[in-house]
């Protein structure tokens, strides 16, 4: 068999050729060998109205490609019943769903296998019934999204030739149907559990395979099936978004070296042929709006950098940049200081610089950091960089906490500057803080809770990551107690910063709770919020003892230290009476929200 370089990977940034069916089967077979004897952990339901055939194969290959290797399975429904298949998916053991809608799901007369006629009466009827049919699909998708993440792809195939126009001219029927579908997708996108997949890029190859459609009820060419699978899989299984971007200034944020030509001479304007830098600035502004932390590391005098960033004609709000580290030392040292201020790991950060030597120096010091070269004034490559940044920082849903993150980090720095006193009881009481523990929001629709579990490293009970579907299943378990913690004080709100999941541990009449997940954002350290959480949990549950599903990880030192302080580090257990002895007075007002 001809050896091909594998060209298909999820989350690649460059345009890739679709996987072949043979390559997909090899991936599946490799995964089967790697995970032999283990029950499927990643179960995807492919919801479609056609025979799933190669689309199911490609989706299974996409699952098989995910790291770490895990046994996977793709479930499918019945031919010609996409609405029923949405219900079947919702009732299934799947933990994720991919929905591929085609025109004949909206009306069978828009497919090749029906004989309902393409006359004017039929066309009027198709248009009249489409909104109702799409409403049915929207209801089914809404129900499904309450149980698992759902990727939805609207019709990708050409309509049959039933408009009066030539193919080069869009017809009224086509435009009206597309209008109905766009409205349907827009409404579905408002559901936090739904991701609308981008249609595959036009390759020039045919999408429809009439022969296979008539022979087997599968409408896609093999290439198009691979592309559709890639669209759905990329929307469904997204990489964990980065949290912060550190940028260079000279010849990156602007054209020119400010220390040499002066702050009035650096430019990013179209008139000066430096618009790519302007685009980059606008991208930074957009990222800041989405809650991405922005920092500067520059070889400059601090005062010069600050003055240049104070220019009022910058195309983004430079006050969102914190911290600004300018100096003449190794950039890796300045980057380390930014990481300290942000209190996040290098693997959550992207570093952008025009100088490859600086990128190498930082990259060698922080191997987990994504280091990207700013490609000079080359508009095409800057455009590519912006797309890359979108993929690195994009997330399905923005939360209130994204907006709050930047300000809370500044507040934390003020607290840190207070030195030893910052942890004292007097200082904490003086914060006038309120901890809100919400026992009612532990629903699967709370994407922030899951985000915290999957992004938090330091105060994390065991480092376990949870898929969205598994998260829904966990919360559906009878007796499961899920609480999210929010916090605000005189420095402002931190938003939701903690999550704890517990369930009764057997055999002791409910007197013992087992805490399976517990995370607290690094922005909320040193405020004793963790004490408030345990205090509330013990009081509300009446449990006499807590068992922690603790696992030491490379990065959960803060959690280990906390368990050590309350005497639960070695045994993983905590008696309620002991906790009350060691806890002492709690500094903040506490509100509890229940169902």
């Amino acid at each position, binding site marked *: 068999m001809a050896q091909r370089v594998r060209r298909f990977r999820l989350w690649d940034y460059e345009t890739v050729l679709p996987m072949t069916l*043979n390559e997909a*089967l090899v991936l599946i077979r490799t995964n089967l060998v790697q995970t032999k004897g283990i029950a499927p952990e990643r179960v995807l339901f492919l919801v479609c109205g056609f025979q799933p055939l190669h689309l199911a194969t490609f989706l299974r290959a996409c699952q098989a490609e995910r790291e770490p290797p895990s046994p996977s399975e793709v479930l499918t429904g019945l031919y010609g019943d996409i609405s029923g298949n949405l219900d079947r998916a919702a009732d299934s053991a799947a933990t994720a769903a991919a929905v591929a809608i085609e025109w004949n799901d909206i009306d069978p007369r828009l497919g090749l296998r029906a004989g309902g006629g393409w006359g004017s009466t039929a066309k009027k009827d198709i248009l009249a019934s489409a909104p109702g049919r799409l409403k049915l699909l929207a209801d089914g998708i809404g129900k499904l999204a309450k149980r698992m993440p759902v990727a939805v792809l609207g019709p990708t195939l050409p309509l049959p030739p039933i408009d009066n126009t030539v193919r080069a001219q869009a017809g009224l029927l086509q435009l009206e149907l597309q209008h109905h579908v766009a409205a349907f997708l827009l409404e579905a996108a408002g559901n936090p559990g739904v991701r609308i997949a981008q249609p595959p890029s036009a390759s020039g190859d045919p999408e429809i395979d009439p022969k296979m459609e*008539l022979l*087997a009820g599968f409408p896609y060419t*093999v290439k198009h099936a691979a592309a559709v699978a890639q669209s759905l899989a990329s929307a469904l299984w997204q990489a964990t978004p980065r949290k912060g971007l550190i940028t260079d200034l000279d010849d990156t944020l602007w054209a020119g070296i400010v220390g040499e030509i002066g702050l009035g001479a650096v430019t990013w304007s179209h008139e000066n042929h430096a618009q790519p830098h302007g685009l980059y600035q606008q991208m930074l502004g957009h990222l800041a709006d989405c809650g991405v932390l922005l920092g500067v590391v520059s070889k400059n005098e601090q005062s010069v950098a600050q003055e240049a960033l104070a220019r009022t004609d910058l195309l983004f709000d430079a006050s969102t940049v914190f911290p600004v580290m300018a100096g003449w030392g190794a950039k890796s040292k300045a980057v380390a200081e930014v990481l300290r201020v942000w209190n996040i790991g290098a693997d959550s950060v992207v570093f952008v610089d025009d100088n490859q030597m600086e990128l190498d120096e930082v990259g060698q010091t922080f191997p987990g950091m994504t280091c990207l070269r700013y490609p000079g004034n080359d508009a095409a490559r800057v455009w590519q960089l912006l797309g890359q940044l979108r993929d690195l920082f994009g997330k399905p849903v923005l939360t209130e906490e994204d907006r709050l993150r930047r300000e809370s980090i500044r507040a934390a720095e003020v607290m840190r500057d207070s030195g030893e006193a910052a942890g004292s009881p007097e200082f904490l009481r003086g914060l006038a803080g309120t901890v809100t523990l919400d026992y009612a929001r532990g629903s699967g629709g709370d994407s922030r809770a899951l985000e915290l579990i999957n992004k938090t490293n330091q105060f994390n009970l065991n480092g376990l990551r949870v898929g969205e579907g598994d998260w829904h299943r966990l919360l559906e378990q009878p007796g499961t107690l899920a609480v999210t913690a929010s916090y605000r004080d005189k420095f402002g709100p931190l938003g939701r910063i903690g999550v704890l999941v517990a369930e009764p541990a057997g055999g002791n009449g409910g007197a013992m709770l087992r805490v399976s997940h517990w995370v607290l954002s690094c922005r909320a350290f040193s405020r004793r919020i963790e004490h408030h959480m345990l205090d509330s949990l013990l009081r509300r549950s009446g449990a006499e003892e807590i068992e922690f599903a603790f696992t030491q990880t490379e990065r959960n030192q803060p959690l280990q230290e906390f368990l050590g302080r309350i005497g639960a580090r070695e045994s993983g257990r905590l008696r309620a009476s002991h906790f009350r002895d060691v806890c002492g007075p709690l500094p903040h007002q506490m509100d509890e929200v229940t169902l």
Partner: protein
Amino acid sequence: MNAIENRVTQCFANVFPGLPPGQIPDASTDTLEAWDSVAHITLLTVVSEEFGIEFEPQDYVDLISYPEILKAVKDRLA
């Protein structure tokens, strides 16, 4: 085994990962339980993909064993 046979055999191995290589030359819809309608479409698709050839609807009815598929490939490439 020549190059064409090797490649057809590899297609079978990809579609039927549980089939021992020694049994592939004797595989047919009668002898192989896993060779159902879905596997059949998949098999002929990967073979056509591998060799850049097309099968007609009647081929999907006629080509129901390894020797028949191998012969069909050789005929088309001849």
